[in-house]
């Protein structure tokens, strides 16, 4: 467990950087977690973060890559609903990295 300081308070994350308490997520937290991953959040990143949070809200599940691509396509159109688009934004592993920045649990159905 580690703590990261954000706006005068501290937030606990696990070794891989996922939030321990999912309720502590805010956009400021996302910015901070992104810095740790060396990602500067652009509008394109935020779109995906909102899609993946909506997915979790609806299905109580952090999506694997394939359903994430599908959800992005449905929400933002076929141009963005492509794995290459997500790979550019979250180069490490889109499903895991996007879930982390969105304050969701690590996806368990990943490969």
């Amino acid at each position, binding site marked *: 467990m580690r703590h990261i300081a954000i706006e005068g308070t501290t937030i606990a994350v696990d070794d891989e950087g996922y939030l321990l308490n999912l309720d502590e997520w805010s956009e400021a937290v996302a910015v901070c977690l992104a810095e740790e991953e060396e990602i500067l959040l652009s509008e394109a990143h935020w779109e995906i973060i909102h899609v993946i949070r909506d*997915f979790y809200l*609806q*299905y*109580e*599940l952090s*999506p*694997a*890559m*394939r*359903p994430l691509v*599908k*959800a992005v396509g449905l929400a933002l159109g076929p141009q963005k609903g492509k794995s290459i688009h997500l790979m550019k934004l979250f180069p490490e592993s889109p499903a895991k990295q996007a879930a982390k920045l969105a304050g969701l649990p690590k996806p*368990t*159905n*990943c*490969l």
Partner: protein
Amino acid sequence: MQQKKILLILSRAPYGDAHAKEALDVALTAAAFGLPVSLLLTQDAPSLLLSSQQPQQIQQKNLASICSALPMYDIENIYIEALAAQTQQVTLDQLVLPAEFVNETDVAVMIRNHDVVLRF
């Protein structure tokens, strides 16, 4: 090699034990692996799809919500054994997603036509 078709047969009701949740995890992972997955609900399992579930009352995750994600994982073949549904008075309009009733003969044929059959 031709892709193997997997049939998952769920037989237990949700929440009382871990079977339904662990079966769904297998379904989602196999689908994420790109395998064609069909789901069949028999015995006590049809109630898993009821949209009226409020498991927050017993501090559990909503398995119906997870089930509603199945089409997002390209799991579109969802079957319910008709007699089991009838016994539990489960009708198609009460479910979180579209499913198809099958009879016992259909089930026997489905088992024969899949390469791998896992029961839970």
